[in-house]
């Protein structure tokens, strides 16, 4: 799945070049929103997107090739989808270089306002392999930023394009890219009271979509392992809800252990050897850690309350979770051994589904307040709460591997006759800007973002 698709940079990028100008402008919505929810506000960033020119990749004849056009389009779509880039219309290009080896005539590009220029070649060689080269230029300083290339099976075209888009993203933003990633989620169909739910899998841009389960059994809350080769999820096989493991490569599924109660809410530890989950028995739900190699479990919380939705910090030393031990649903952190429990959410409303950012510095969550749902982030000590998205029902944030973008699902209200209830995936920049729907073939919920695949 991952062999022969690696694009290599010939020249290490100069990360210092940071053309991005992001002004974070958290502000209060005036009027209506403020009146409705009083102290609540939703942050919205303002971002000046970086204009880049992406030329169609050329074939051996120096003219745009079919595969070259596809690659340029994918790169352009990726960058634009981040909200941080603007792709200059290629109709304005005067004479793109016929190959990435040729130094561009910058006088052709400066007037277009381009800050970056991506030139590339892409063609199928005699063996049917896709050969790709690219060069990224800084139009302002007229210097090469990075260049690279590689070859792959033509089926790997989209991944190659995503990897190049990641390089461009990284050079201009200073953040790690996230375009060469996948999403596992729950595809939904059927009436609201008998929903058919299937695990589905796709590239982060919605392509290469496939179903992983048939829909015979109810499945919920899939989560990727740190290698993206395994998915832990809740499966109602035989009407016995339990955490299962699905091997993405072989398609094999395995029930994780056998316990008197129900196991759910799984999440992998950062090194992939452990998993945390909830075990509900006799009306109490506690958090357990499982050693995957031996499937032995260790109990981490012991309260009569509901302790669920645990998520490790990226270094694996801490766990954030959701508990109603204080009377209402709030967020707590503890050491990974279950000691030093500390409540971190103190705002109005109920807090749920905490997920630690891959950067380690903030925690995303779902908040319920006055009949509305919100997606927000807070610092790991609970300070600095910012709400990013809101709706009748928004839930289940998941982080892009660079900690810069969140995906979640949004469900519309249903009428008594069963109309409405549309459920879709959305993603948003953590500045609260650029909320976009992620297109799926059917209704979609419970997204989980893979780590970076390369």
């Amino acid at each position: 799945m991952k062999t022969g698709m690696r694009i290599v940079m010939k020249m290490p990028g100069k990360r210092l070049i940071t053309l991005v100008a992001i002004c974070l402008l958290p502000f209060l919505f005036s009027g209506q929103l403020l009146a409705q929810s009083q102290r609540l506000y939703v942050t919205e960033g303002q971002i000046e997107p970086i204009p880049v020119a992406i030329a169609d990749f050329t074939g051996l004849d120096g003219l745009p090739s079919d595969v070259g056009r596809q690659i340029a389009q994918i790169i352009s779509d990726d960058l634009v989808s981040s909200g941080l880039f603007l792709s200059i219309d290629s109709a304005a290009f005067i004479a793109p270089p016929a190959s990435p080896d040729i130094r561009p005539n910058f006088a052709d590009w400066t007037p277009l306002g381009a800050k970056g220029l991506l030139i590339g070649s892409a063609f199928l060689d005699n063996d049917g392999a896709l050969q790709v080269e690219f060069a990224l230029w800084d139009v302002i300083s007229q210097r090469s930023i990075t260049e690279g290339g590689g070859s792959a099976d033509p089926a790997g075209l989209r991944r190659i394009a995503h990897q190049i888009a990641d390089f461009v993203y990284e050079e201009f933003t200073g953040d790690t890219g996230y375009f060469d990633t996948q999403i596992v989620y729950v595809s939904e169909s059927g009436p609201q009271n008998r929903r058919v739910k299937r695990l589905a899998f796709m590239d982060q841009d919605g392509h290469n979509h496939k179903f992983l389960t048939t829909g015979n059994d109810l499945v919920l809350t899939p989560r990727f392992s740190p290698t993206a080769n395994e998915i832990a999820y809740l499966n109602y096989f035989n009407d016995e809800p339990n955490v299962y493991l699905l091997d993405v490569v072989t398609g094999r599924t395995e029930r994780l252990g056998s316990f008197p109660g129900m196991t759910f809410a799984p999440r992998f530890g950062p090194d992939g050897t452990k998993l945390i989950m909830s075990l509900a028995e006799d009306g109490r739900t506690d958090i357990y850690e499982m050693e995957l190699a031996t499937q032995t479990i260790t109990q981490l919380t012991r309260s009569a309350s509901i302790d669920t939705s645990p998520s490790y910090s990226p270094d694996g030393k801490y766990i954030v979770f959701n508990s109603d031990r204080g009377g209402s649903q709030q967020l707590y952190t503890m050491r990974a051994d279950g000691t030093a429990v500390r409540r971190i959410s103190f705002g109005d409303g109920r807090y749920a589904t905490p997920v630690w950012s891959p950067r380690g510095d903030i925690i995303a969550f779902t908040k319920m307040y006055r009949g509305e749902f919100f997606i927000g982030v807070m610092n790991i000590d609970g300070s600095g709460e910012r709400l990013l998205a809101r709706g009748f029902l928004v839930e289940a944030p998941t982080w892009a591997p660079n900690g810069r973008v969140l995906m979640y699902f949004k469900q519309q209200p249903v009428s008594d006759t069963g109309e409405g209830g549309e459920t879709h995936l959305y993603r948003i920049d953590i500045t609260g800007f650029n909320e976009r729907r992620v297109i799926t073939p059917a209704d979609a919920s419970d997204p989980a973002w893979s780590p970076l695949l390369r």
Partner: protein
Amino acid sequence: MIKRILTLVAATALLAACETASTTDSSATSSSATTATSGTSTATSTATSTTATAAEAETPAEMMKREFTKVGTTILFDFDSSQISDYARTVLDRQAAFLKAQPEARIILGGHADERGTREYNLALGERRAAAARDYLVAKGVNSARIRIISYGKERPAAVGSNEAAWRLNRRAESVLN
């Protein structure tokens, strides 16, 4: 076979005794009220006019399920609560009486939540509700081995609709004969 039929007759007799209670209760509240009321009316007509056909069409197991439905299978909960209400007690009392009269019957107790909570928390809440109902039945003398609990969280609403009327009916524990 003969023994089965005999116990079923006994169950019907027992239920007939309960029905007076359930109809008076049902006017007071709830979704289970709907089930109980309709159950009562069909019960009388079935008993008199269509006994023969019903007996032919139904297996003993189906018949027992139908009888169990008349007892009242659903209890409701307040928002984010697993407290058994006074009315829910009367329903569970009838379930306990049925189960004691049918020593071979086993039930699956499904716990549910409305859509106004997050998925994982609602799975835990559904489990807590089912466990609360089970504990009540066990306290009334039903062997816990005859009850299996399962939580569906917000996955299987009884009523469709994003409004309090539907949510109220979805915060429930539902007993089904196994």
